[in-house]
């Protein structure tokens, strides 16, 4: 492969990494917020959010991307391809991760929560000081899996014209009539990205285990 061809794929890799990073940073807290609002059983809102989460979870990701890019404008929300891609990725991962957070909230030790309340901690303090520091650690594995799924969803945003790794590799393949090398490079980059995530997860998990023993 020529250098410009490799450059094209690397540019795609930067776009993929950026899309993934921004969507992760937005979607995990948003998923937690959705879970908290549902868990609090705020009357109408909790039901609406439950329906929203089910709908997003049932929708193929590519359909969600098309919806955000082509249908939202008719509701007055016009987005460029990259912001639209980020929005779709964020909604999708927020919905899936909210289920992880929700399960974590539901199964969190009632004893610990009661002890905190008995000692005068406020609802907010119970969450920020007792619950959250434990549930993110205990659910690091499932959350990282969600993130790797997010990464694997990114090629779908090519349908609205975002040039990420896979799309870039496809272009190079079409121009050189040799599709194999660019796709090998693309695969290598995906593998490196996911390996980095998993590696990070291992390091954090090992530190947690050393300090607190079992995390669950």
């Amino acid at each position: 492969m020529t250098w410009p061809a490799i450059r094209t794929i690397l540019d795609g890799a930067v776009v993929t990494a950026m899309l993934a990073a921004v969507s992760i940073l937005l979607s995990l807290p948003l998923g937690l917020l959705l879970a908290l609002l549902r868990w609090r059983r705020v009357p109408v809102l909790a039901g609406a959010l439950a329906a929203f989460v089910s709908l997003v979870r049932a929708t193929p990701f590519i359909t969600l991307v098309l919806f955000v890019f082509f249908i939202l404008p008719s509701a007055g929300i016009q987005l460029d391809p990259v912001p639209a891609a980020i929005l779709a990725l964020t909604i999708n991962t927020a919905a899936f991760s909210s289920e992880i957070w929700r399960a974590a909230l539901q199964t969190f030790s009632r004893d610990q929560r009661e002890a905190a309340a008995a000692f005068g901690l406020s609802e907010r303090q119970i969450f920020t000081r007792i619950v959250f520091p434990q549930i993110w650690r205990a659910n690091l594995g499932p959350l990282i899996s969600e993130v790797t799924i997010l990464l694997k969803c990114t090629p779908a945003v090519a349908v609205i014209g975002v040039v990420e790794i896979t799309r870039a590799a496809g272009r190079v393949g079409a121009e050189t009539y040799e599709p194999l090398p660019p796709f090998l490079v693309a695969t290598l980059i995906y593998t490196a990205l996911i390996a980095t995530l998993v590696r990070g997860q291992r390091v954090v998990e090992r530190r947690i285990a050393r300090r607190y023993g079992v995390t669950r």
Partner: protein
Amino acid sequence: MAEIDAAISVKGVCKDFDGFEVLRDIDLDIAPGTTTCILGPSGSGKSTLLRCLNWLEEPSKGSVFIHGKPIGRIGTAATARPMARRELATARTSIAMVFQHFALWPHLTVLGNVVEAPVHVLRRPRREAEAEGRAILSRVGLAEKADAYPHTLSGGQKQRVAISRALAMRPKVILFDEPTSALDPEMVGEVLSVIHELAKEGLTMVIVTHEMRFARDVADTIVFMEGGCIREVAPPQAFFTDPQSERAKRFLTRH
């Protein structure tokens, strides 16, 4: 005893879980500085009563006063309103609790568990709270465990941490719900002896327990419950040697 003088005053407390009556019209006054042991068969409502004292359980009727101040609900029957969460949290700071299953916070060190509420609820300076926390831990024989995490401790040690966590609040009242029931037999003694020491110091303590000998030694007052009612309130000597009710007699022959 007037409710103003009592450390804890319970007036007409009833509690049902979905129509199933667990506490029936409980009245009880507990004098400051005394140790009260609540005895009774399992399912008689001992834990529920204890949990009503700090409003972990909300009575369906009645009121609770801690040193004359109402907790959980303010005003009498007709005009009663629930306390705001913040008020309730504040009221709870004078009543500490020790749980059957310890309920330590596993992500905090032993010292972290002890200073959590003093620092974040009472807003004491961390340095000061930690110094006091270490002093309390050494009193219960756990000075060298201050920086350990709870999962590395034995059950007896965990319960002593839980007691330290309670003491660190400088509470007026400490509630114990079967503090030794989850322990291996060889660890019961170390926890009971710590509680016994505290009883000599003028704290007001209410202890639900199945340890009859301990209750006899430590209590100023025995409260015997059965079927959601208080059947007997007596000094230990009287209760253990000459129980008045048939039910208490039967209970004592079985324990």
